[in-house]
């Protein structure tokens, strides 16, 4: 067992876990942030996608020991009120069927739009490699474009501004 300090959703946590524990299980089991999902355990499906700084990573295959000082953002920390432009777009396009993969899809889209504010269909094909078993891809594509419009127009719900990081020892 080893102790790790993490910054997740602008809060600081200290966890005591096995060094090879994937970030996914730290989020879900230690920090009770269960919005990030387990799907395959081998970085194939993307249900576990979170942001590390501005990049999408697959937390099921990312050991907690490698996170270091990088800032992690999960679906729970994307916005204060669930009104991040990508969340809004997903609701407006009424994307979810079962909903299980959608947090990962949303996080992958947030990372895509940071790199490419105006993604083409080809950009979406290349970046959006998360599996949706309900196969809602038609609406996901529509929602990515819609989210890009909202982000670029800048009039709709902004991402949550970072509040001062608070020390917060996870209880479990």
């Amino acid at each position: 067992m080893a102790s790790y300090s993490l910054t997740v959703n602008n809060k600081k946590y200290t966890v005591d876990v096995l060094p090879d524990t994937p970030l996914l299980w730290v989020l879900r089991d230690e920090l009770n942030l269960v919005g990030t999902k387990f799907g395959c355990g081998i970085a194939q499906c993307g249900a576990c996608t979170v942001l590390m700084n501005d990049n999408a990573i697959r937390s099921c295959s990312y050991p907690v020991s490698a996170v270091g000082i990088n800032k992690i953002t999960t679906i729970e920390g994307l916005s204060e009120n669930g009104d991040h432009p990508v969340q809004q777009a997903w609701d407006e396009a009424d994307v979810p069927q079962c909903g299980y993969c959608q947090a990962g899809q949303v996080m992958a889209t947030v990372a895509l739009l940071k790199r490419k504010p105006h993604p083409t269909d080809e950009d979406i094909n290349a970046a959006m490699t998360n599996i949706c078993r309900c196969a809602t891809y038609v609406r996901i594509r529509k929602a990515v474009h819609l989210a890009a419009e909202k982000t670029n127009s800048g009039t709709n719900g902004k991402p949550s501004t970072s509040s001062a990081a608070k020390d917060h020892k996870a209880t479990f």
Partner: protein
Amino acid sequence: MKQVPTNISRRHFLKISTLTGGGILLGFELLANATPEAIAEAGAPVFAPNAYLSIDPQGIVTLMAPNPEIGQGVKTSLPMLLAEELDIDWNKVVVTQATLDKAYGNQVAGGSSSIRTRYEPIRKAGATARYMLIAAAAQTWNVPEQECTTENGWVLHKAGGKKLSYGELATKSASMPVPENIKLKDPKDFKIIGKRIKNIDNKQILTGKPLFGIDTRREGMFYTMVARPPAFGKKLKSFDDTDARKIPGVKNVVQAGNVVAVLATNTWAAKKGRDALKVVWEDDSKLESTAEHREAFTNFLQQKSEKPDRSDGDAEQSLAKAKKVIEAIYEVPIIAHAPMEPINFFADVRDGKADLYGPTQVPGKVRSDVAKALGIAEENITVGIPRQGGGFGRKLRSDNAVEAALISAAAKAPVQMLWTREDDMQGDFYRPNGMYRYRAAINENNELDGWYLIATALNSNRAASSENFPAGALANYRTDSHGLNSNIQTGPWRAPTHNALAFAEQSFLDEIAHELKKDPVAFRLELLDHAKSNPVGKVSYDIEKFKSVINLVSKMSNWGKNTPGRYKGFAAYYSFSTYVAEVAEISMVNGKLKVHKVYAAVNCGQVVNMSGAENQVQGAIVDGLGHAWFSEITFDKGAVQQKNFNSYKLIHMQDAPPEVEVQFIATNDAPTGLGEPGLPPIAAAVGNAIFAATGKRVRKLPFNNNMS
């Protein structure tokens, strides 16, 4: 829209109603099933003839979603039926997932049945409430009930200029007699049914709330992983848990039937402990391989069945005297359900009682099967129903709940059992593989005169759906089925039987049309006209509904007009009493398939939620396309060879058609199934388009492995 995030038991629900100040619990069909204890516990003012809806004096309207939500949308669409007849503002209702309770009748997610079977009873439950609210208002105002109307949560007496809200009327309504002859709304007055309503859980899904079984966290619970047999035909012989128990966080190791469970304080420790077990498995029955199945299937295809599934006229004689016989063999592989949420279940079995919570399409079966497995009475078992990360038929089995319950009983502790994806790939109840041998007799007049299908599939003696079109349209028609028994578990997979058969049948019809030099769409319509004007035997499909979708999709897709480089394929199929015709538009670039657009015309009767319905059909099409294109499970000596998504291929964004255009036949006919019927036609529609593009007929799925 407000959401109550947790499952609330009915008893608890009654209590809440009381606590919020009396109010009424209204309903319709199961007056006798409200247990006296529940009513007593809830307190005097509560009127509880059934459990579908409640209104409290503050005007909070709570609608119960009775069936499991697996992504098919019934947590939204079933309460919409209540809201419509109750005449309330959808944006102000609270929707709550019901727990397993006899008061809700058959709580199943399967067979595309939820809306089909509940359309009228649930509307009546809503209408009953509305009648009683009117009665209460009429009595208050001393006016005839007939002069009162309702609107968005208010009862109005327009002549007298009076109005009262449902909340204000709630307490009084509870003492009104339950009306008998309830008249449901005329569909022309629908304000909610048929509209686009968003998934009720969108907000919670999109903010990562704990909605799913895998998110369950309970006091004292152990995260649990299991060592399961590595192959069908193997059973547990012995295990050594010395190393497993050394992993920090591992608290216990127990055997439960044929599996060994590791209980730990977190998932990773449970997994490491599971992986550190030294388990010895021994052969229990034959270790089967896919190659053997194919050999057996091939033999079956040459065997005439003693007892055909259906036989009209004499198909053999028709073939014998035919001017030409068209023959083709189609084949589909095993595929996995692989719901996105890996198999899991929470179980707390203590003191002769079991508290169960987890993903299931059949909570009632979970209760009865766990009762049998543990030897405890059903009334000592509670089953909560979370939102579920996909079903597709996998969760029509109760094995996950039974396994978790046995582990909890053995460990005497609450457990959340979770399988890895690899466990799931080896432990599925797969869509069976199968082969289909078709022969068509073409007579002197260049007409289709006879049809003979011999079908075979793993563990299924009904591989042919003998009532399928073109049965009834042909003088000579016969289907035989042979099942191949196997210890490899198979089970229903979205649109069982149809998901495989439609590919074979609709491709073969295309072959015949091309052979006869007829347009594939015109050929179908011609056969349907035969079935209408000169039916042979029983005609199990609705000819007009079938034609309605064929004609609509032809129009939508500009059938018969092709853009250079683009090719179209057509298929039409009915299942769960719903008719779907699809046209796939593809191109082949350097031998690589690209699906540009799919058109679908659907006749499912009255559409309840237009957004949800469209989503279901779009999803079913891309789901069916993906599996037909990429997915295949094979076995070697009982062991699955595709152990995760790196070798078991599912469709991704890059291959999904950018557009899937869906249109529904506008009708107020009673709704038929919708979760499944969009899926069966797509494989053949794409296969037929590949033929149009290349002149090559792909008769074996998946396309990706069989196109060169």
